[in-house]
């Protein structure tokens, strides 16, 4: 009985390989998350990374973020522009294009459908395990 109670604690249900899992999940949706950070207006790498970390998605390194931004820029979903600052170094600012906004809307719907299916399946398996 004690053993069952212990394994049902949320911290004990967390698999050991959670960081690897999260990184794989993130890979599939990072471009959408980056696009979503630009819906309110233009932004730059560090600010995007900070917004994603603030949303609980972990510390996204430059080596992961910039290839995504490059791909989005090449696809025409964002426009990047380097601007020199009056004080301090310049930055490359990214702005969402109309095409990017449309792609974000379509892909968000597709992701949410997928997420709903995953959630339904996993929730069902949890309740089966508990009964």
């Amino acid at each position, binding site marked *: 009985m004690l053993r069952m109670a212990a394994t049902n604690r949320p911290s004990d249900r967390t698999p050991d390989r959670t*960081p*690897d899992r*999260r*990184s794989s999940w*993130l*890979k599939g949706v*990072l471009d959408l998350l980056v696009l979503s950070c630009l819906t309110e207006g233009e932004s*730059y*790498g*560090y600010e995007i990374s900070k917004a994603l*970390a603030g949303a609980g998605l*972990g*510390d*996204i*390194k*430059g*080596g*992961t973020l*910039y*290839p995504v*931004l*490059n791909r989005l*820029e*090449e696809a025409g979903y964002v426009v*990047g522009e*380097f601007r020199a600052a009056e004080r*301090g*170094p*310049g*930055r*490359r600012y990214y702005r969402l294009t109309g095409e990017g906004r449309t792609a974000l809307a379509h892909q968000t719907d597709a992701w949410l459908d997928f997420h709903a299916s995953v959630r339904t399946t996993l929730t069902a398996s949890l309740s089966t395990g508990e009964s």
Partner: protein
Amino acid sequence: MMTANDTYFDRLGTALRAAGMSGDEAAATVADLSAYVADGDGVDPVEEFGAPEEFAARLTGGGPAEGPSAQAEVWKWTCDLYNDRKLLNQYGDQGWEVERIDRVGRFVCRRDPSAALRWEYRREIANNAQERAARIAELAPEGWEPSGHWLFSLYFKRPKAASAGPAAGLDVLPETPAERVLLGVRIRKLMLFTALMAMLFAVLVTTGFVDVTSPSFLYALPVALAVGGGLGYYGTRRDARAGVEDLEK
């Protein structure tokens, strides 16, 4: 009884070790930062540094987002402080990303042929964990991430795409360099000078001009070594702070 600060530094130590930092280095970092927090009146480590796991990732240059792919090439090399920035930027332009600096001071680099990026590097001087944390926080808004530290040198990396976008792409990858130790002219001259001094000393000993068993020699030797070592360390740090570089190849 454990305080909130103790719990914070306990978690930080665990996260640093999990990120690959040696036990000794993690303990020294934790001790340094705890002393800083203890000195500050009511400093909250969470407010000052952020969550321990995220702070550990920043300090070690690691991150949860993506690990190296199976095809990634790894190259470990070292150089002297008079050539480090030039060489780091040269090889960064060939797609080499410094992941960390190992215990013997080598840059541990990786390059994923399927997703290579051009990297740029910079070096800052930081004498302890507190100064390193301050430099890291200061440069983060410019997109610089720590890539490791060695003695007083703290290295940062940034993808060139941060300023140039897709134009910084890398189509052709030069071969992995065969060299592992890249010493500049200044250090090679210093090594030659040291070898000549050692030879001169050996001649003086064998010809009887210096008696290595005399008490005066035995007292003078450790003093000379300590003074020489100290002067070398502070001279190198002064040069590093001033940004002195080898101009010759």
